[in-house]
């Protein structure tokens, strides 16, 4: 069992505990997931894939729910999109 998983967030490599979701990792580091229609920073609300506030870009695909996605080694995450 690996001691940590390495993912890339906004170009920066970070270590996360194995099995953590992307949303948990971002929130722990104070990184907001997205900007709202009027430009406010937003983070996860429901934690269970309902609210869509946790959307980030994962491996080039926008609008993925980060609270439903477990970190995989090498995943590239971009925040601050729609």
């Amino acid at each position: 069992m690996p001691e940590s998983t390495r993912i890339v967030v906004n170009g920066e490599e970070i270590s996360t505990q194995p099995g953590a979701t992307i949303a948990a990792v971002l929130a722990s580091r104070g990184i907001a997931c997205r900007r709202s229609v009027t430009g406010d920073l937003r983070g996860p609300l429901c934690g269970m894939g309902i609210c869509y506030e946790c959307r980030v870009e994962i491996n080039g695909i926008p609008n993925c729910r980060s609270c439903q996605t477990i970190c995989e080694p090498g995943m590239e995450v971009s925040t601050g999109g729609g």
Partner: protein
Amino acid sequence: MAAEKKCFDVLIVGGGPAGLAAAHRSARAGASTGIVDDNPALGGQIWRGETPHNKSEAAKWLNLPRTHVEILTGTHVFHADARSRTLFAESRLANFELHYNHLILATGARERFLPFPGWTLPNVMAAGGLQAMAKSGLAIRGKRIVVAGTGPLLLAVAAYLAKHGANVTMICEQASFTRLVRFGLGLAAQPSKIVQALGLRRDLAGVPFSANTWPMKAKGNGVLQSVVLSRNGHTQELACDYLACGFHLVPNIELLALLGCNIRNGFVEVDEFQKTSVENVYCAGEPTAIGGLESSLLEGEIAALSATGLQDATGALRHKRGKLSSFATRLETAFTIRPDLRTLCEADTIVCRCEDVVHGRLTPHPSWRAAKLHTRCGMGPCQGRVCGPATEFLFGWQPDSVRPPIYPARFESLAFVEHELGA
């Protein structure tokens, strides 16, 4: 990308307690069983992060017999066709066409969100949502957390957080002490009684509990920094790192509505064997009534027995279930959301988070449909799951009909849905 086709005798949607109980019974009856859940692992909300490898009750249910049960996690159902008995689902990398003889829907419930100024700041979360995030790796040790809203869920959440090292600053219950007393937990105006009754005493020792208390405003600069509470008629501001808000649960009935099941007062109608009004479609757990863990387990078992032709074996289970229903009703009554919570929004308080529609833009409209058309409230990716129950509470609006996709789905998944033509 063509859909991967699968066939099951019994297909279960929802991997929480009701779905797991159904899966066990279905497998025991020898039926080829599939269980689908959109979370990364089974367990639903209450058993999120639980392992199948210890002696807990959760583990017992999470240990599914793989010979008979195929598990599809990270997969959500976005479309359905009752006539051809097919569900259409997708995961991050694949999409599926799931055929069934019998369908058991155990889609659970989600939290109700009530808007108030500042509720959209990062680190304001649902009560169960914060717990889910903590279970999924959110660092909470030493963080100051205010837990607010209503109902026993708050205590369960606070206990979990405290046990894992968070500094739970206060539990704020909007119900009055009178109501709590009437709830009949032998309270005698002692919050410690609730704690005892739920076996949480040790975990919540020293955590302040305040009834007649609710959040009025979350404050912070780009992130939550404090919450202003209404507390017994006064205001009090508490600095905090997280605010967890829970205002009851709303049943996830969208898939059931899409299949054409009868819905009454927001819940799915089932008979005593958990059958819905649609042939071969059963429903167990929260979508039939918010009943809690025990009730969900019983209903899951009853549904699977019914689906596999073993109705006659459900007698004892149905009897047990019947004894639980009054508790659920008493719970609802005791923790009814007070009207004050309708007055928290200011004109510029966001109500629809997907489209940033503020309260002031919604008030002129007479209905959910009118508001949706003219302000786009409810037209975002949450499909009204957040703002729908909120506006129902604020304005009395009823939601309108359900159309596919019932969750946002990839364009190609929706494009390659094939339906049988003809009657």
